[in-house]
């Protein structure tokens, strides 16, 4: 469903809406940098928990775990900085940039739309609706699966990082000092951080599938929108 703001934008440009500029450049840049960071984090994280076979030769000739851990920590920093930048853009960007962070749970119409989208995904609706930003169901899963998992991974991740950088480091002060006592000990934080990776994997699976499926079956562009920023509509019907 087109929001009132979109309709006004549309009216200013003539009656039928063919294309709307949705994702501004910083949002698109963040999306792809973030996707890359998550890929590196998942891969390097996997090999931290289950290391590769032993390296031959002297210990001083090898630094494989060191490099894998470096990649993990570096990508973690990229994820954190990107996330802070994304939060900043939610304040200064267009109203679509805020959609990730706010769930309109007190809006009855929005819940009706969630149900409609559920019915669409269960093949109970013949024709999909038009959405400029995320459809309500997508917004719901973005918030619950992606946003909360990302926050959880940042907090637990930097808490574990702070164990190595020790007391006095920013990550120890901000995270380790309360996260480890909260979980009881370090091993549980490791376990839940590891589970978080799988939740993020689930999100990526559903996210990529839904984006490609909607690109084909819905009435608007999906994948190209995250590249160009423009949402294109396939028909003139409302």
């Amino acid at each position, binding site marked *: 469903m087109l929001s009132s703001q979109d309709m006004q934008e549309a009216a200013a440009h003539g009656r039928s809406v063919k294309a709307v500029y949705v994702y501004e450049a910083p949002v698109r840049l963040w999306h792809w940098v973030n996707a890359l960071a998550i890929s590196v984090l998942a891969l390097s994280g996997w090999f931290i928990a289950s290391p590769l076979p032993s390296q031959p030769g002297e210990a001083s000739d090898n630094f494989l775990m060191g490099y894998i851990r470096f990649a993990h920590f570096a990508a973690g920093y990229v994820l954190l900085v990107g996330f802070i930048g994304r939060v900043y853009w939610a304040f200064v960007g267009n109203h679509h940039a805020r959609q990730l962070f706010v769930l309109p749970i007190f809006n009855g119409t929005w819940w009706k739309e969630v149900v409609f989208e559920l019915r669409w995904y269960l093949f109970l609706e013949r024709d999909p609706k038009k959405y400029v930003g995320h459809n309500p169901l997508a917004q719901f899963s973005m918030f619950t699966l992606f946003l909360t998992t990302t926050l959880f991974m940042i907090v637990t991740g930097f808490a574990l990082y702070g164990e190595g950088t020790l007391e006095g480091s920013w990550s120890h002060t901000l995270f380790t000092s309360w996260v480890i006592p909260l979980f009881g000990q370090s091993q549980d934080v490791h*376990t839940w951080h590891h589970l978080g990776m799988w939740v993020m994997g689930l999100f990526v699976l559903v996210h990529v599938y839904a984006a490609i499926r909607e690109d084909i079956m819905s009435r608007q562009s999906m994948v190209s929108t995250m590249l160009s920023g423009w949402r294109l509509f396939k028909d003139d019907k409302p």
Partner: protein
Amino acid sequence: MVETFYEVMRRQGITRRSFLKYCSLTAASLGLGPAFVPRIAHAMETKPRTPVLWLHGLECTCCSESFIRSAHPLAKDAVLSMISLDYDDTLMASAGHQAEAILEEVMTKYKGNYILAVEGNPPLNQEGMSCIIGGKPFLDQLKHVAKDAKAIISWGSCASWGCVQAAKPNPTQATPIHKVIFDKPIIKVPGCPPIAEVMTGVITYMLTFDRLPELDRQGRPKMFYGQRIHDKCYRRPHFDAGQFAEAWDDEGSRRGYCLYKMGCKGPTTYNACSTVRWNGGVSFPIQSGHGCIGCSEDGFWDKGSFYDRVTDIQQFGVEANADQVGGAALGVVGAAVVAHAAVSAIKQSQNKSGNDKSGNDQ
């Protein structure tokens, strides 16, 4: 007249030279500079011995066994000279009513000035019947003695976290000290058992400086529990290089490679084993070829196998680790996605042919 530490030591036949040696060793083991040696000596020469009452709840006595093997200082010096260990039902000569009488005597004479050391913990179920001391539940004795104590030392993982008797399902409801005593400073010295030198080191610090050692958020002395075993492990270079023992009898194991893949809990365990070591600095588990089991961490019995790196998650009811749970979830959702995609494709082609038909009709 109350004797000072120095007087007692001299009475024991310790020369002044040995006494000063002991002071510098203590300073070194506490991580203090040489400037503190005279301060330690001065404190021991002038301060009266602090009485320590050592209670035993539900425990296995491994803390006591460790304590009496302390090398720096020797347990003999610790018990006979440093502290005035006035009550310890495992070590003391007297028994029965005589022993209990000493408890009351110290509590009145040194009200608010004695240290209470607790080994083990009180069980709360069945009105505490699982641990009876002198005809009464241990919880009664503990609360009674804690009332006038200056500070409490929780010896070992039992007193600090609960340890094996508190492992799931914890039938006796064994409960760590900080969950039954709330109005006294509590120093946790976890480990199963704690390192002997850590135990005597904590006591020496408290006597020397007349204050508690600096504690972390979980109540452990920072000087011994500030870093993980992994951070100071002599096998750490093999970890960073990616060289691991993959089986107990493989080449990597013989070469002394990192035991991470064998489930070593060094990376998640805060203790001083890799620096202070055990039995007078002879060795520690990893040096003897076995991974750390994380005995000084909260709930270490309930964290799955000692030999797994990614350990089991109890919350899921079945024995499964993060990879099994996550893999299963991903598999189910993945299958659902494939099925959904297939149905979508069919629907799409139906819609298309339907649209074509309606187009033809017009």
